[in-house]
């Protein structure tokens, strides 16, 4: 069976080699005696183009609210809704806060998801005390707000505000993940209105001899 040559080569191998050689020679001729300068001019003109005027409050509050890290404090069943909120369907990562820190020292938000008993209360207070300033607390669910249906029980704390200061209350039993996300948005709006006092401390020079 004969090989059917349906298409002839446009260039012969010799012509291709010749073309390649000419290409290399021309690039070498153009490049050998020339050095492309490093792109470092912008380092010098930094000050000319990188100034943004704003208020300290706006910058500090933007930085604080844009990546709230949550401390792990989920004593009861609201924690399941909290996990749903953090997972892919509701996706807490959209707001830059998908990390639930295992250590309260790396967290600045406490979401109190669940019923708190008096026996657990010292531990929750300790978690709150270990969090670094600034820190915020969202009371999640009926139990977090008021003790919920367990309010009259002998060992349930009637609301987290007996233990820690609360910033936002999210009602529900349990709240839907959307409700908790809405509560987080409300907390962000609250942080955006905070005022930061920058205290510059100078040592007063004594005028007396």
């Amino acid at each position, binding site marked *: 069976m004969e090989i059917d040559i349906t298409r002839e080569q446009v260039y012969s191998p010799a012509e291709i080699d010749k073309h390649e050689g000419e290409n290399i020679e021309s690039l070498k001729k153009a490049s050998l005696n020339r050095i492309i300068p490093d792109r470092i001019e912008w380092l010098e003109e930094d000050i000319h183009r990188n100034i943004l005027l704003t208020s300290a409050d706006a910058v500090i509050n933007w930085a604080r609210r844009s990546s709230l890290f949550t401390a792990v404090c989920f004593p009861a069943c609201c924690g399941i809704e909290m996990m749903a909120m953090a997972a892919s369907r509701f996706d807490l990562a959209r707001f830059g806060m998908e990390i639930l820190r295992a250590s309260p020292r790396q967290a600045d938000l406490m979401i109190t998801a669940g019923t708190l008993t*008096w*026996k657990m209360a010292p531990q929750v207070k300790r978690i709150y005390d270990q969090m670094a300033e600034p820190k915020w607390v969202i009371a999640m669910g009926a139990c977090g707000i008021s003790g919920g249906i367990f309010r009259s029980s*002998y*060992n349930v704390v009637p609301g987290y505000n007996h233990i820690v200061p609360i910033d936002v209350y999210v009602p529900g039993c349990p709240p839907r993940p959307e409700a908790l996300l809405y509560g987080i948005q409300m907390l962000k709006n609250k942080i955006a209105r905070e005022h930061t006092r920058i205290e510059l401390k100078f040592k007063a020079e004594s005028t007396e001899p």
Partner: protein
Amino acid sequence: MTIALSTGNIGKVLNNKFHSAIKEISGEAIIIDRDSLFDVAEFLRNSDEYAFDYLNYLTAVDYYDYFEVVYRITSLKHNRTLILKTRCDRDNPSVPSIVKLWKGADFQEREVYDLLGIVFEGHPNLKHIFLWEGFQGHPLRKDYF
């Protein structure tokens, strides 16, 4: 499936062995005098005939006039189960501890002590398990609130 032991047959045996200890034999349970509970339980656990080697649970009920402590025991060897009950008065409630026979009774006796205030005599470590030290009252008693 584990078969509930007929209280009639075992009741006769216990009646012969512990005359005054058996107060009442109902359809489901054998009610034993508080003072002889440990002896009866020891016999049921250690005899080859019954060999109740497993304690399913231990709990207590407040019947206003008295407390009733309920034991459900199972023989894994013979695939049989039995319910024992014992009663104590409300004023100074105490029941002998069975931790020496079944180790699993330890925490459950502490729970009953915590929530109903029944003292288990001979328990190695009878202190609060759910509630904290210094808690006043016993929450599962009917007159707590």
